């Protein structure tokens, strides 16, 4: 089993990153919506810390993924034979990279703008990325809100595209080839 990607297959590093982030993002979309709407009290305020911690891990995994794809470029998508489908797939993939930067970054900016420590894993305090200001906080969380909805839309399109095509695309992300 190869760690590296080839011209036609995904190595295990890329596949592990893909599935770890897939489960992470899916879980975070649900979890984020839950914490944003729950009645906050002593018994559940810790959930914000968990959300931030997982979000920062996903952000770090994205950085690893980008670096790794420079080291070991991914194979080209298999052509479906339908032009708009191929173009849609490429744009959804690009949107994932943009949104997986914008979503955690806006969460981090908004959290820091509250003036409270951005504490992950109950021990690491991240530096604030914006001044303490309600305007920054509101703007950042508005971005976080919209970007997470776009991310959810991309997830739906991505999964629909992946399960609908029967050309081995799914198999090479699951098993490698």
């Amino acid at each position, binding site marked *: 089993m190869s760690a590296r990607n080839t011209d036609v297959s995904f190595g295990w590093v890329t596949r592990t990153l893909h599935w770890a982030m897939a489960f992470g993002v899916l879980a975070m979309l649900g979890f984020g919506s839950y914490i944003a709407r729950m*009645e*906050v*009290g*002593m*018994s559940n*305020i810790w959930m914000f810390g968990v959300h931030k911690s997982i979000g920062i891990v996903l952000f770090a995994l994205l950085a690893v993924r980008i670096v790794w794809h420079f080291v070991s470029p991914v194979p080209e998508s298999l052509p479906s034979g339908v032009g708009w489908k191929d173009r849609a797939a490429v744009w959804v993939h690009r949107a994932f990279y943009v949104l997986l930067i914008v979503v955690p970054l806006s969460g981090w900016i908004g959290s820091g703008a*509250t*003036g*409270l*420590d951005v504490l992950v894993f109950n021990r690491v305090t991240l530096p604030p990325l914006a001044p*303490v200001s*309600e305007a920054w906080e509101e703007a950042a969380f508005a971005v976080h809100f919209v970007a997470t909805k776009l991310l959810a839309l991309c997830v739906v399109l991505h999964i629909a595209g992946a399960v609908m095509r029967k050309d081995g695309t799914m198999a090479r992300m699951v098993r490698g080839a």
Partner: protein
Amino acid sequence: MRIILASLCVWLTAAVCGWAMPLTYALNESESRVGFEVPFGPDQITGTMPVRSADIALDFERPANSRISVVLDVGNAQANFPFATQALRGPRVLDASQFPDISFVSNTIEVRADAPSQALLTGDITIRGVTRPITLDAELFRPAGRALGEREQLFVRLEGAVSRAAFGASGWDDLVGDEVSLNLMLRIDLVE
């Protein structure tokens, strides 16, 4: 003759004023504290704030002549979990770096007819530089084991509530309630 008159005057003044003279007390900071409580979802955020200083004079014959003023130390306020402590001291709530004190000054004191150790205190409280009237329930206690009528060491308890919004201290009002209840317990010692 003049000397006799003068000394008589001094004596008379002292005698007359002596009864009405309020007794001055010094604050025992380490045994005094302020507790506060504010709704937080289904729970309460609770905490304490040290008392920085107090100026207390009690007139047991004419209680209306008593005065109580207290200054609290905002920068060392402490809540029951770290985020709340940080939020409390920060710019959206008490803004301790700009406004390091909360102060209360009494205006009127009205002893309850049915309970002479209890009184209604009106005065002004200043939070974040904003001064507003407040009414506090006051009660005097002797430390356990002290004989009736001893006044050397006393506890003063003050209780009341403030609206955060009235002082511009309304940060996180989507999560944390507006009304903060206050409970001050001051240990005071008679100044000889």
